[in-house]
Structures are given as C-alpha cells and as structure tokens.
C-alpha cells in the first residue's frame, strides 16, 4: 500500500513529519550512511523552516499552499505502474540519438531506458542505483549545492527522495550524445513525487542533459524536484528542462548549479503546461572566467500559473552571465518572473545581462516581472530590461497585407517572439521539436 498523507486537520508540515516518522527506518533509510544522515538533518530543517506562508516575499505571487493541501500518495515504496515502451515513444525527441533514461513516477526504469554505450568512466543511471554502486561519487556531491539548510523544499526533497537520475562525466571526457531523461507520471491516485537529480561534469568534461516531464494519466500530481549540477574547471554543461505534465500537475523545481573557473553552463527551461509551476534556479559561478546562460520560455494558458525565480550569484570575478526569459501568456494564465543577479564585493569585472519579455494575449492574462540587481563590486557591467506588451496590430496588418490570414499572422509573430529562446537550443533535433511544438500551439486553428 502506498503511504498517503494524513487527512486529519493538521498543518501541511505535520503531515509530512508524520509520514517521515512512519517510514523512517524502513524505506527511507537510503542506501548509504551519508544519505541517511542528510535525511535526518533535512527533516529537522524542514520542521524548523516550515512551508512559505502566504505573505512570504519569495512566494508573494504563487500560492503554493493550494497544491500542498491535497492528500497525495507518497511514493515511498517501489510500485510497478504499467507503462510500456509505446507509452514512452511519443515523449522521445524524433531523430535524436541520445542516452535515454526513463523514470516512471520518479523511479529509474531500466527496462524502458536505453542508455547505450558510454565513454570510459561515464555514468548515466538512476539516483538510487548510483548511491548503491558509486557511493563515493554521490556522497562527494549530494547536498553540496542544493541548500537543504535554508530552503524548505530542498529540505523536504532531501528527506523524502527515493530515486531520480545521476549523470557523471569524468575529467576530459565528452559525452557526444545528449542524455535524455524522460520522466513519466502514471498515477491512479493523487501523487507526490520527490525525485533527485545529480549531474556532475568534471574538469574539462562536456555533457548535454535534456529532461522532459510528461504524464500519461491525469490525476493531480505534485513533483518537488531537486537538481544539483556541478561543472568542474573548464567543463561545459548544457541543461534543458521541458515541463509538460498536463493541466493537473504541480511542480516545484529547485535547480542549483555550481561552476568552477572557466566553466560554461547553459540552462534552458521550457514550461508548456501545469496547474502551478515554480522553478527556483540558482547558479553559482564560483571561479573566475565562468559563463552562465539562462534561458526560459513559458507558454501559459487555461489558468496555468508559472513562476520562475532565478538567481545568478557572482561569487568570483571576471565572469559573464546572460539571461533571457520570455513569456507568452494567454487566457487567464499567470506568469511570474523574478530575476536576481548578485555581484559580490570582490567580484570585479562582471558582465551580467538580463532581459525578460512578455506578451499578454488576453485581457485576463497576468505577468509579474521583477528584476533584482544587487551589486557590491564597482567595476561591473550589468543591465536588465523587461518588456510587456500585446500583439502588435500593425505587424498583423503588415502580414495580412501580404496574404497571410489573421491566424497565420498571429502564429508567425508568436513563434517569432519565442525565436531567440529557441535559437539557443543547441541540440538540432530538440530545437526542431520545440519549434514544431510552439508553432502547433499557436498555429492556425482548424
């Protein structure tokens, strides 16, 4: 029987604490001592921190309590939902040769995965499997970048996580093919998942990781995911996150990246569906001459609520960061963007650029956009820009005057708006897929 959150009238925190106590010593033990210690620390921190209250500044526009209240089943013991290769097939990227790792309800499913051949020393596997097979590697990194001390959702994930994915690329090794992690939700009841992802690119290594979240069922789900990534000296790490789990899914993603000097990290977040999506993305370029690129594209519709909070913490000098988030908000959807750039006192010669542009496609669509530049060094070049607008009537008329229908003109302009985010997708097959998706989403209605 899956463990379900208590229905009794109590605080949301208490429900998790009760579930933790009930499961501790059995399924929650984890596979090695470091993880076990972490869990103990994390649950204590969770209890001390508590979920953000309605008035908490960081969650001002996002009512996370709303999705916390449900009586989710917790996936604390392995189950085997019936998912076939045919179910997964539509979620793969056509014409993409990749190391495919499939998670079903947050658990690594070896039978459905096709990881294929990897360079010497490289590892692509489930998180629990990695903790068993490569405890030294996992222990050296897990909990190092995601801050379970001060972040309640990371603490919760750390206490409860069962599985997820693990990618390790050793020194001077290049993963020529991308790793594609396909996370599928297949649930018969409302379900809460807490997958953990750990991506390590050692010195001078290179990897591209694509994460796709999809659902084949339509119960309410709440995924509290944590991604920790580590880019060693001169490492190159490209990360794509495609969030499309359907209208009843809620996601809280904490993605925390650490960068050594001369490393280049690109993150790309695409949000296409979800009742509520909150992404906390934090990059820490901790060595000189790092490059950090953050891209995001949100397509909001039908009451979706998508909140991207990003932080670039320039802890070292001579680094470059650029950020571009675009929102296309339709119907009564809401988008929130909060982009914080922190340049610490000794981090001289930083170039940091941020922009976020939003198109509101309906009277009921909302965007809350807030750039936050906090600069304590004096020799820096930082800029930010935010635009919000509606579809340009004159542009529509221009296209119509060349023979395009209103719907075609609108579609062309909306895809064009998303273009500069799509253009930064460096995996050709993925770019083509996303392009097709965005075009179809706004394409002329039949």
């Amino acid at each position: 029987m899956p463990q379900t959150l208590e229905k009794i009238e109590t605080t949301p925190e208490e429900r998790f604490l009760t579930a933790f106590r009930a499961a501790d010593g059995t399924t929650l033990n984890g596979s090695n001592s470091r993880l076990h210690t972490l869990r103990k620390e994390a649950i204590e921190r969770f209890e001390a921190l508590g979920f953000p209250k309605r008035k908490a500044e960081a969650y001002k526009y996002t009512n996370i309590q709303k999705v916390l209240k449900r009586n989710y089943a917790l996936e604390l013991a392995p189950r085997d939902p019936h998912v076939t290769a045919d179910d997964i097939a539509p979620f793969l990227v056509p014409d993409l040769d990749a190391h495919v790792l499939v998670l079903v309800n947050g658990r690594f499913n070896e039978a459905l995965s096709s990881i294929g051949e990897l360079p010497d020393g490289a590892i692509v596997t489930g998180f629990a499997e990695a903790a068993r097979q490569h405890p030294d590697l996992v222990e050296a990194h897990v909990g190092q970048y995601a801050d379970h001390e001060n972040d309640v959702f990371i603490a919760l994930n750390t206490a409860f996580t069962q599985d997820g994915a693990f990618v390790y690329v050793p020194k001077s090794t290049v993963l020529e093919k991308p790793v594609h992690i396909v996370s599928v939700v297949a649930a018969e009841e409302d379900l809460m998942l807490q997958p953990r992802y750990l991506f390590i690119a050692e010195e001078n290594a290179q990897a591209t990781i694509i994460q796709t979240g999809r659902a084949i069922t339509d119960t309410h789900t709440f995924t509290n995911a944590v991604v920790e990534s580590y880019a060693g000296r001169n490492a190159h790490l490209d990360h794509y996150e495609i969030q499309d789990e359907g209208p009843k899914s809620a996601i809280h993603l904490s993605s925390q990246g650490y960068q050594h000097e001369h490393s280049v990290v690109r993150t790309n977040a695409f949000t296409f569906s979800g009742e509520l999506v909150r992404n906390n993305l934090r990059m820490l370029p901790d060595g000189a001459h790092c490059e950090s690129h953050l891209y995001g594209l949100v397509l909001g519709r039908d009451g979706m609520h998508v909140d991207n909070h990003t932080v670039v913490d320039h802890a070292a000098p001579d680094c470059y960061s650029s950020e571009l988030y675009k929102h296309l908000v339709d119907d009564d959807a809401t988008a929130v963007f909060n982009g914080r750039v922190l340049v610490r006192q000794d981090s001289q010669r930083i170039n940091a650029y941020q922009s976020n542009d939003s198109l509101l496609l309906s009277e009921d669509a909302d965007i809350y956009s807030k750039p936050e530049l906090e600069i304590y060094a004096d020799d820096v070049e930082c800029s930010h820009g935010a635009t919000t607008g509606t579809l340009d009537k004159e542009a529509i008329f221009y296209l119509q005057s060349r023979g395009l229908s209103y719907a075609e003109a609108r579609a062309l302009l909306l895809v064009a708006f998303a273009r500069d985010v799509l253009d930064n997708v460096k995996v050709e097959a993925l770019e083509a897929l996303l392009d097709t998706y965005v075009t179809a989403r706004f394409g002329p209605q039949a």
Partner: protein
Amino acid sequence: MALLEVKNLHASVEDTNILKGVDLTIDGGQVHAIMGPNGSGKSTLASVLAGREEYEVSEGSVHYLGEDLLELEPDERALEGIFLAFQYPVELPGVSMMNFLKQAINSKREHQGQEEIKAADFMKLMRERAELVSLDPKLMRRSVNEGFSGGEKKRNEIFQLAMLEPKLAILDETDSGLDIDALRVVADGVNKLRAEDRGFLIITHYQRLLDYIVPDVVHVMVDGKIVKTGGKDLAIELEEKGYDWIRGEAVPA
C-alpha cells in the same frame, strides 16, 4: 471593367472624418498618382483600400475588378491581387525574410489553386527580384526589416511587390526619406514592374518621384477629396505653384 472604382468614399478614424467623398477610377496598365498636402487623406485612402481595420467607411463604395472590395479582409484583398507598399514598413524580429516570403507566396499560390513553390524556384525568383531593386541578398537571411536602413526598407517593399506580382499596387509615400540615388533605384524597379495588367496608385507629397515614374493620371487631394485631375504636367505645375494654388481654386463658389 475598371481595375479599381472608388465612388463617393467617406471614411473616418476615431470619429474624425478624413475622406469626404473620393471618386477615383483606375484601369489596368495605368499609373495614377495622388498628390496632396500633409493631412489631406492620401494615406488614409491607401489604408482603406488595403483594409486597415481602424478606418471606418461610412459612405460610398469601392469596387475592385467589379467586386465589392470593402467586404474583404486585408488578407483576402492581398490574395485577390492588391498590394500596399507601406509608408512605414514594420519590423518583424524573429520572422525571417525567407519564411515570410515563402509563406506569402504559397498563400497566394494556394489561393490560385497552384502547388507550393519549389525551393529552387523560390530561391531563383528571390534572387531575380532582389536584383530589380538592388537589394542585398544577404538581407534574406535576416528578420523582416529588422535593422534595415530606411532605404532598404523601402526597397524591400518594392521587392515584395515584385515577388507577389499584384494587379493593383499602392505605393504609400514610398519616396519619403529616400535620397535621390535610392529614389532612382526604387523608381527603376517600379518602372520594370509596369505591365498591361497591373495598375499603380502612387501616393506622394513631392513631384520628384514622378520625374522617374511617369504617371498617366495625376490627382490632387485636398481635405479628403480629389479636387483636380490631370496629366503628368499637373504634377509639375503643382510643384511650381504649391498646394495653396489648388486650395484657392478648390474653394467652393
């Protein structure tokens, strides 16, 4: 049958009457010029003909090849062969020239029951027509009008005209902002596109353009009406005497 027949056209924007009874007939193969002072309603006429939605027609009629033009959406007008070269061409960041042109051409071909244009034919056509207005083919790889100079934007309009081969081409102050060299290039392009089955309506404030594109008929518009119509010499007379001369003449008795 006339290519375009405008009768007693009244139009307003935001409750301001701008056109106050325009009559105009253009036959295929003809080049008509409309001159007039700023605010006389020249560009409004172009907008109404192309179907810009802010303009409301309160009276009168427009027939294009015998059909009621005012019933048609802007894109339907374009597909039927009306082309407006914009006074202020719109920048479309993220929309590549290539995709835009291909979609425009294929919309027209589909409307005419033809198959989509073949890639090689499209490229050939594009190169050919770009040369007509000395438009740098490299611009085809850019977004529509984005970062184009003023002259490039105007040449791009004539280039699109050449690509889409309309039956009625309306040039809305295409000469504004062009220096004499650019003006000659644009005029040369237009002259090469003159054809038996194609009419032009050229809207301009200045006579100079008409030195290069010699019109068959010149109209003078003042205060929302065509007050004088004549041959190409009218343009020259107007340049010499100024619009006040016409205004004086046009005062009703």
